[in-house]
């Protein structure tokens, strides 16, 4: 992973919306700096020159009225011209993605183009490069805010409302998004990584996500995986987590159908992997204090814990 990947910076624009915002920001900062320096130079000249008169009328009308009117009118036209497309309806070719914020994670919903079925995943956004993505944003509890600085935004996520935002990624990459409205104890660990891929790679990913969970790749159908799945059910992990094809009881927590395919666990808290998965299940409250998931290290024995982590890592 290069240094720029997974970054969270509005100065590294990766799409038209972020580029427009960055352009306006640079113009404002540079323009304000030039005007400030010019004013200081004028002030220095005025203090040095003790004699002589200036044309007061020219300076007051020219500098106090004409100059601001011209500059601000120009800025207004420029910013209107560069305004990101806040649309009430998505363009025809857009990918539509639903994101529901929860304390403190993200539920992400796609529609499978083949079957029309809803595909639910969590804490990671995959989008195709070069295609507009139209987000429907809402919240299930308190007000959150959707912000991926490298792509643009931000937009508040308000319970009982669906807000819209249209973004686009122009190159392949991984960027970090972050809840941008203080929403409680784990607001800081409520990250949403965005993975932009070539359209063909994205289509294959979405088709894989639409499939229910399988026990694992061919040949890996061994005892550990079976034990992991049985332990997952025996310890009632499925009381909160859905694994499509295994248990679809409730979705209080993130959908784990393809959890092994994600980059991070706990909404960006730790990188994903079998060891980290076991640590996450055992020490949830140490890794993310206050999260709505209890630490299970004391009630699940080590062999079951490892089996659950191995099985979940196989759900790709």
């Amino acid at each position, binding site marked *: 992973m290069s240094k720029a990947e997974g970054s969270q910076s509005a100065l590294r624009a990766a799409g038209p919306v972020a580029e427009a915002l960055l352009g306006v920001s640079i113009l404002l900062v540079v323009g304000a700096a030039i005007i400030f320096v010019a004013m200081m130079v004028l002030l220095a000249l005025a203090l040095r020159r003790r004699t002589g008169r200036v044309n007061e009328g020219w300076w007051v009308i020219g500098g106090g009225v004409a100059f601001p009117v011209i500059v601000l009118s120009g800025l207004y036209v420029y910013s209107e011209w560069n305004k990101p497309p806040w649309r009430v309806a998505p363009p025809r070719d857009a990918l539509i993605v639903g994101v529901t914020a929860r304390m403190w994670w993200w539920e992400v919903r796609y529609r499978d183009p083949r079957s029309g079925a809803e595909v639910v995943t969590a804490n990671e956004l995959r989008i195709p490069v070069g295609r507009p993505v139209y987000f429907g944003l809402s919240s299930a509890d308190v007000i959150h805010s959707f912000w991926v600085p490298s792509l643009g935004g931000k937009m508040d996520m308000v319970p009982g409302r669906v807000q819209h935002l249209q973004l686009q990624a122009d190159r392949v990459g991984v960027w970090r998004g972050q809840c941008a409205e203080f929403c409680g104890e784990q607001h800081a660990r409520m990250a949403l990584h965005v993975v932009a891929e070539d359209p063909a790679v994205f289509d294959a990913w979405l088709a894989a996500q639409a499939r229910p969970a399988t026990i694992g790749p061919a040949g890996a159908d061994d005892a550990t995986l079976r034990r992991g799945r049985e332990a997952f059910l025996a310890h009632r992990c499925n009381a909160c987590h859905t694994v499509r094809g295994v248990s679809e009881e409730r979705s209080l927590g993130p959908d784990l159908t393809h959890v092994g395919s994600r980059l991070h666990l706990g909404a960006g808290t730790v990188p994903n992997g079998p060891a980290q998965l076991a640590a996450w299940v055992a020490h949830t409250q140490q890794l993310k204090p206050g999260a*709505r998931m209890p630490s299970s290290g004391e*009630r699940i024995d080590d062999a079951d814990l490892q089996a659950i982590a191995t099985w979940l890592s196989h759900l790709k």
Partner: protein
Amino acid sequence: MPDAPPHRLAPPAAWLAIGAFTVFTGGCELRERDPPHAAADAAQVQRGQRLLAQYQCGSCHSIPEVASARGHVGPPLAAFGRRSYIAGHLPNRPDTLARWIAEPAALVPDTTMPSMGVSAGDARDIAAYLMTLE
């Protein structure tokens, strides 16, 4: 300062009001709450305490009398028998509590408490135990 207007009720009216209040509160609250407290037999209470550990309630709730219950994800259950409400707004009665334990989302759809697969009978035992926590 002007004299305060006379506030006192005539004695018969006052007694009537007190009587009506007693009958009203007794009718809707105390009469339903008292018997289950007293009626729950020791065996049921003990069974409830054991089931509470079996269903792993303690991974989210702390209960002073149960050693394995030290979770802090959900609210602590100390002195639950004295509480007026379940989940902030359901009246705390044994029958309601048993339904809540068995299927929380059926009573409060957006609750974060999961259904742990507790049978109706087991839920009644657990509720009986929780009602004894003073």
